[in-house]
């Protein structure tokens, strides 16, 4: 059973810089209509946490889901 992950975005802190979108190896994230990050393909997430470590605004949390 592969692990599944939950990507939480703090949209108040996100500034929509697009760094997380560019570095995600599985293209999980995209910008929404308000130019904030949005996890659109969360089932593809492999939990590498590159987005969490790269986010300059402390806006992303990757958690292992049950």
């Amino acid at each position, binding site marked *: 059973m592969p692990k599944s992950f939950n990507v939480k975005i703090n949209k*108040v*802190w996100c*500034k*929509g*810089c*697009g*760094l997380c979108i*560019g*570095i995600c190896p599985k293209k999980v994230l995209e910008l929404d209509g308000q130019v904030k990050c949005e996890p659109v393909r969360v089932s593809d997430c492999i939990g590498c*946490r*590159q987005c*969490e*470590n*790269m*986010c*300059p*605004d*402390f806006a992303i*949390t990757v958690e292992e889901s049950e």
Partner: protein
Amino acid sequence: MPRENVMKWLRSQFMPHIWCPGCGHGIIMHAMLRALTSLGRDPDKTVISSGIGCSSRLPGYIDTCTLHTAHGRSLAFATGVKMVNPELTVIDVMGDGDCSAIGGNHFIHACRRNIGICAIVMNNSIYGMTGGQASPTTPVGAIASTAPYGAVDPPFDICRLATGAGATLVARATIAQPQLCESLIKKGIQHDGFSVIEIMTHCHTQYGRKNKLGRPLDNFNYFKERSVMKAKADSMPPEELEGKYVIGELFHKADGEEYTKKYARVIEKAGR
């Protein structure tokens, strides 16, 4: 890293921070907080000092003992703090101008003393806050507001400067390797002596827009392509390393005695 640990160190009432969207300073702050939490440091026994500039806004967002001091003089304040209480973890965050121009003398003398401070130099090759003037680390040929035809002066290599001046741990990373930043900052904090961690970051607003690196992601790719690990760089000819950033632990001298220990003997001798 569970995020709650990092969040405990943040003054979240001041977030979101003032830095531009995608600014590398946030990446460095995150790496620094991860390093501090994984070392299990106590916020009440940690002091973060900074000078003036975008980079020096960093301590304002961290819930520990913080000092926002005069331009270039943050190391002087940090030295005072460390001398009074050598038990404290003292970190000094500086920008490239703060470190190598305005505070150049403070920097080389702190290196010479080998005092137990971890100096993190956030090098974005420009004076970002004041309008994009060329700094001592602006690469030759790069456009800046005070160098509209390209910078002429050869830039400082801060790591080589620190090694030459006597720092006992010198390392470099770029924002394209946040994990390496974290591990090097961790080493710097644990090191007994003066450690200089230079982190190459970007200012896409003031530097990038003039130099075809306008988006944060362009800068990330720029650093990723030009980073070479120290072990690989040792076997490469110098011509190939032109324009590359050698990353990793560049210099480590384990047997240098720390300054506050030497000074404690002076205090003992004076009979105080």
